[in-house]
């Protein structure tokens, strides 16, 4: 029942998105603009700075993710549908999980475009250990979506939500970003430093677990009116 509710929420968001593709396209374009802006700072005489690609990749994901989070919940607010969702005789935690999976899915699609592009533009050897990279990206993205969905949901009713979301989310996701960037750097080095990457992945996974438990715990308490 729990899983079915979560998947229903996910399917609902997915169906809306497939029709308009608004959030996917805007998020993707925003991520590309981020990459362009970073290229101004981190390229010297045509050569990208060492290790810059990992940072650019993760910051682009974080910025684009923040935008997607804001838009996803703005859509619910605009249609007054979040209240309907919360009034539905379904577990709040399941609704949260559905929303969170939607963000993970959206960001995963963005990453499919973003990773090869960053590798290409900044001459980074991102695909030396593709499996580890996928796990690292997934663990980081899930962590980001777990914290982000909770905060975006809480901020729906706040007047200042547009500016509050990044203000709250960025300091909170600092350890996720450090682990993501350092792990990616370890994977692009010659020779590939798989041991460090695995260490960062396990740190990310433990963060995901702790944040998910806390989020499921707080979502119920926070979303009651």
């Amino acid at each position: 029942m729990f899983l079915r509710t979560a998947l229903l929420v996910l399917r609902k968001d997915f169906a809306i998105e497939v029709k308009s593709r608004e959030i996917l396209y805007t998020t993707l374009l925003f991520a590309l603009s981020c990459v362009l802006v970073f290229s101004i700072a981190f390229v010297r005489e045509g050569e990208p700075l060492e290790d810059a690609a990992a940072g650019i990749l993760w910051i682009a994901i974080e910025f684009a993710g923040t935008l997607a989070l804001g838009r996803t919940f703005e859509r619910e607010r605009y249609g007054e549908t979040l209240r309907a969702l919360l009034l539905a005789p379904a577990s709040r935690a399941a609704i949260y999980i559905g929303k969170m999976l939607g963000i993970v899915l959206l960001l995963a699609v963005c990453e499919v475009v973003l990773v090869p592009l960053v590798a290409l533009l900044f001459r980074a050897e991102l695909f030396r250990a593709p499996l580890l990279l996928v796990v690292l990206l997934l663990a980081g993205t899930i962590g980001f979506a777990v914290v982000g969905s909770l905060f975006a949901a809480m901020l729906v009713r706040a007047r200042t939500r547009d500016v509050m979301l990044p203000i709250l989310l960025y300091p909170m996701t600092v350890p996720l970003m450090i682990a993501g960037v350092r792990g990616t750097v370890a994977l692009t080095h010659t020779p590939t430093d798989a041991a460090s990457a695995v260490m960062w992945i396990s740190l990310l996974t433990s963060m995901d677990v702790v944040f998910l438990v806390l989020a499921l715990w707080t979502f119920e308490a926070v979303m009651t009116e």
Partner: protein
Amino acid sequence: MKKAFVPLLLLTAAMFAYAPVIIAHADYESTMGLVQKVMYFHAPSGMVMLISAVVCGVASAMYLWRKNPSADRVAIAAAELTALFGLIVLVTGPLWARKAWGVWWVWEARLTMSFVGWLIAVGYLFVRKYGGPGSDKLGAALAVFGTANVPFIYVSVNIWRTMHPMTTVVPTLQAGMRGAFWFSALTLFMLYGLLLTARIHLERQRAALDELYLAEEN
């Protein structure tokens, strides 16, 4: 606490007045000299900041799950003091670093962590001020997350090379510095306790006033 407040306040004020004397008489550190004396306020402020953050996190958790309104008052008071003492740490730190390391700031473990912790505390205060209705619960969730985050920030930034002295430096301080250090620390702890009490009292009065207004309207 009400009766003890004024005497304790006077005692803390006297200790603050005496602190420069005891700090001036403490031994000079052999390589850094005079500038090392920043430590007597810098390190205890860092301790107070950390204690205050934990107080805020625990109180917020109690508010979120037990719906205890007095816990919320403790949380907001502790968050304000975390931001205040964090600011003291972040101002005195670079002043010391400029002389000791030759730079105002380095992006290493402890500095990054203090900065992030301070940002979270200020974020909490922003939520409380500009969050609109329901911001008390929002802030509580933020504080709970912030507190749970501390070990992760600590681990992830600590894997980078650490330049800042470790906390183990405190018990191994030279005899000539130890007395002054713990005197300053005690003074700041007392100041923290007093400020926290006063702030909680203010918040309680504010809640009582709101209730009176509501009663009047009805």
